[in-house]
């Protein structure tokens, strides 16, 4: 034991001494102070005029999932998936940029049965896949044009992705949910101390409710969103709103800050339907990283509460109505403690207090091999047959307890 202590003492002292020696060397013959060379400046448009850039990515996944469903039947399902992405990025000058990101996928992914604009419990991944041995046609992930209006505003037009809202586990404040499946025109501007963003989102599948078969120029398929944000040295705050011809209005406000080494946020959302329906949602959360150089714990905790009337046609929680006092808590944690052997453990627990259902996922990812991630994960879903997390179980086989073994190969090349 003494030898071990002595060894570590020598090791630490050696480290400190070498640091001291190295820093002293830097002062042996220092360059004299003098005037700065101001002949050049950093361009504000760092990447303007860049030649066309191409990028490619490949991701190949192989899964094996085994587990038991609610009937206590063992269900095994091997899943393989391949995603080949490619695209271009052209910045013509300091005003214009054209960006395209396309992909081919196997197998042909099935669209989720229901995409809900107002669903804050959106599963993190859709793993529902068809069993047909077919690739997709070329799909457009993003295809947009950026245009700078001087130094005042930036516009982005086309298919684009964006996420608003503050929550990482529950994000009811994402008023632009669905933007990635449609087309949008978005403009951001700095107005005094405020940053103002306006988005017009056209999404035929998402916004054409009530069987409306409006033409492509109809307002029935266009939603309008506005976000105004202000940041001071102590906190940031924002107000956002959404309006749709058939759906009504939504309004959201948030405050977030960082102190005691912890990020905090509070966000509230109100919704008003065309028929007088109202609902409200609040979410608050903290994020903290614990540890020095190695973060042995990265912790995210969130609490969501929502309520609405009896009308189910306009709802924050469209798929499960749990009344006025619908509370859900979420906890997610990862650790860098095993990073030295390429391992990353993580855990996520979501629990509905309203119907005592929930989901617990414990996973371990090994990234020690170049381009390859090996994952083992155990998932436990619990609750009654009609409870939120049992009904919304993202596993297409509806396993209550499952073990997933997954190998992923991926790389990305840009030139």
């Amino acid at each position: 034991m003494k030898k071990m202590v002595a060894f570590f003492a020598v090791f630490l002292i050696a480290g400190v001494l070498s640091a001291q020696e190295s820093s002293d060397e830097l002062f042996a013959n220092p360059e004299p102070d003098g005037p700065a060379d101001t002949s050049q400046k950093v361009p504000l448009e760092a990447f303007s005029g860049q030649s066309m850039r191409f990028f490619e990515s490949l991701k190949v996944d192989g899964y094996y999932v085994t587990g038991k469903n609610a009937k206590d039947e063992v269900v095994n399902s091997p899943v393989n998936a391949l995603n080949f992405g490619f695209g271009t990025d052209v910045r013509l000058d300091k005003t214009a940029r054209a960006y395209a990101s396309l992909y081919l996928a196997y197998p042909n992914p099935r669209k989720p049965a229901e995409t809900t604009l107002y669903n804050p419990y959106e599963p993190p991944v859709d793993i529902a896949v068809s069993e047909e041995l077919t690739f997709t046609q070329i799909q457009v992930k993003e295809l947009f044009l950026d245009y700078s209006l001087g130094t005042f505003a930036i516009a982005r037009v086309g298919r684009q992705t964006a996420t608003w809202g503050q929550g990482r586990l529950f994000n009811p404040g994402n008023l632009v949910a669905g933007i990635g499946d449609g087309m949008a025109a978005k403009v951001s501007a700095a107005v005094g101390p405020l940053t103002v963003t306006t988005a017009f989102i056209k999404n035929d599948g998402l916004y054409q409710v009530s069987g409306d078969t409006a033409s492509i120029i109809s307002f029935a398929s266009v939603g309008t969103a506005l976000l105004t944000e202000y940041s001071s040295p102590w906190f940031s705050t924002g107000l956002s709103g959404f309006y749709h011809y058939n759906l009504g209005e939504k309004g959201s406000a948030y405050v977030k800050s960082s102190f005691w080494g912890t990020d905090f946020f509070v966000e509230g959302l109100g919704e008003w339907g065309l028929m007088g329906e109202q609902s409200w949602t609040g979410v608050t959360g903290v994020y903290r990283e614990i540890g020095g150089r190695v973060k042995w714990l990265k912790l995210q905790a969130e609490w969501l509460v929502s309520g609405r009337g009896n009308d189910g046609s306009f709802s924050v929680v469209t798929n499960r109505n749990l009344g006025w006092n619908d509370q859900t808590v979420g906890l997610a944690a990862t650790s860098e403690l095993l990073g030295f052997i390429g391992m990353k453990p993580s855990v996520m627990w979501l629990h509905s207090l309203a119907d005592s259902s929930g989901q617990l996922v414990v996973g371990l990812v090994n990234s020690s091999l170049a381009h390859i991630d090996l994952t083992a994960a155990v998932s436990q879903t619990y609750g009654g047959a009609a409870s939120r997390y049992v009904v919304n179980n993202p596993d297409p086989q509806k396993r209550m307890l499952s073990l997933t073994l997954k190998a992923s190969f991926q790389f990305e090349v840009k030139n």
Partner: protein
Amino acid sequence: MRYFFVLLALLAVPGWAADIDSVAILSKIDAQVSFMDSDFSAEVQMTQTKPGEGISQRTVALFRRDREQKFVMLLLKPDSDRGKGYLKVGNNLWLYETIPTRRFIVTSAKDRFQNSNARNSDFTRSTLATDYRIVSLTKEKLGPFDTTVYQLEARHNEITFPKMKVWVTADSLVRKTEDYSLSGQLLRTTAMPSYQEFKGRFVPKKVTIIDALMGKTLNGVFKNETTEYSLSKLSTDPLPSLIFTQSYLEKNSQ
């Protein structure tokens, strides 16, 4: 009782006086390297050396508006990281993610910059006067420099290092710092041997950060991880407010 208050006052006065001195001395140090009456931009060339693993280089565009505690860093090189950026306003730091979706996340300002030995806080304006108090001082020769060495301790826990030692020359320029943990363990040493004068302020020509904990023993000798960076293309031209918004990072992301 009267004697008790007199005694209390006698005990309190030196501490109060020392605190006033701390603010005055450290404010003067802060003022030398802060641009409170203009915007500031520069290009940062950064080289990180990991013993046994090689060298990695980065080029970063730095934009600061010190009076509003705002700063933006945008990676220009290497190609694999270009377009990644940070926006910091006071205590809030935004990181723009493109995978799996485009969104901003807020994260602690204590994070290391791009896994180098530098911290994000190294690039913001100097706030020694508000963050630290002087607990002792000594005189020391540092190479050709006659310096005053101030032992500092944190006034609050919102900062990266609870304890510091700074070597300061008569012109109130910091030539060297040592950063310590709360338990007194040396975490890193930073050397700024020479400065470039610019618009009445001073900017380090080259900064060398020696990580006291990270490194590797090669041929029986422990070699520390180091990060060197230099600042060039200095400017105090007014910057558009749009630079200090999330939209600017979004536009430049790849």
